[in-house]
């Protein structure tokens, strides 16, 4: 074999081995078996990033549909998990709006709201506005169709006002 071929093989082997070492230190697998799991998730992340760079990024329609089903039966934790897996790069306004809405519906209470969930909802809503300022949902099942309306509900829910002690609040409905 020519010396040049040995040198080229040497460079290639060093690069491949080096990349593997960098991957191990970045992914930090806890066991040998964990390496393949971490490798799969790293490849999936890299593929998604590649799609974003190439401009071909799309939400996974199957996971989104499953997430919507879970959302409509008030299984908000499962719904959020599916929506997040459908849009791992958090680039789709519609999916992010459903995630924010799921925080609202889960955190809403007839007597009091869950402030922690409402704050998370507000953070997600900021993402929706950053992606699409003029976003409007086409889902007839949602009473609050725009980020502005949903934001108002979140902010009102987080405030403590005299209205909070109005007994008529007990008959109000979740939107």
């Amino acid at each position: 074999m020519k010396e040049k071929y040995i040198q080229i093989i040497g460079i290639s082997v060093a690069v491949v081995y080096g990349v593997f070492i960098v991957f191990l230190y970045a992914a930090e697998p806890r066991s040998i078996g964990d390496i393949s799991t971490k490798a799969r998730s790293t490849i999936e992340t890299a593929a998604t990033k590649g799609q974003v760079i190439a401009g071909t990024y799309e939400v996974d329609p199957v996971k989104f549909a499953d997430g919507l089903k879970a959302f409509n039966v008030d299984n908000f934790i499962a719904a959020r998990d599916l929506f997040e897996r459908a849009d791992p790069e958090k680039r789709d306004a519609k999916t992010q709006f459903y995630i924010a809405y799921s925080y609202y519906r889960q955190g809403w209470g007839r007597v009091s709201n869950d402030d922690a969930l409402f704050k998370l909802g507000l953070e997600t809503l900021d993402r929706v506005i950053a992606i699409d300022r003029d976003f409007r949902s086409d889902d007839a099942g949602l009473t609050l169709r725009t980020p502005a309306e949903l934001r108002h509900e979140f902010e009102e829910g987080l405030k403590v006002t005299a209205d909070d002690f109005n007994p008529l609040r007990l008959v109000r409905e979740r939107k």
Partner: protein
Amino acid sequence: MTSTELSSKNDVMLDETPITGELVAVDGRPIVSTDARAASRQKSCLLYLVLPLIFLTVTLLGGLRLNGVDSSLIFLPPSLFCLIAATVLMILFFRAGLIRLDGWFSESFDLVKNAANASVLVTMFAASTQLFNSLLPERGLPLWVIGFCFFWTLWNNLFSNFDTKRLLKSLGALFGLAFVVKYIVLANLTAPAGESWLRSILENPVRETATYVLDLPRFSAGTGYLQFFAVTLFLLGLFLLPPSTRISDPNE
């Protein structure tokens, strides 16, 4: 090719004087024997395949620790100090002649050879960094003390007159001592992991106190074996490293 077509470059044809020099054909091209070619190929394989593999294995193992509780893998990236120490070590290699810059990079080499040589030296730098990561304690007072000793020794060596053999001996002793301190002395001062605080205090009061005071991490005993392998491989890599990659280098 017949013998009449051959001539000696040095033209030495005296009766009692052995003929030396390179055999060349009539058109001036050197005639390389099969043995010489095989030896050259072997040298290339060692330099461009075996050495990077050795150094990269050291790079892989240098930051690897095994958890004291469940022996799971822990990958510790090198600290900034490791990078600085490795840089000083590389300068030391050049100063002592373990690596001769003009023997590794030259305008007379083709691009692939220069790139291949650079890749070997990059793997060597990575291995040096990870070796310091392996030998330096992870945190606490021992990190500062041993780190200072390392830096003091390397800094002094930088201004000493070294030949290659002495440098290798000195580094062997330095790394060997650091290994003994970290993986034998400090490891034996560390209380075993996975035991309750009360039981640990009752059974091993001295070790528990030393672990607390010196902030010693609790790794599995297998870590020492892995790091012994890493240090040995690194020293083997240094031993196999030629000072120059020129085939006809008289100093090689």
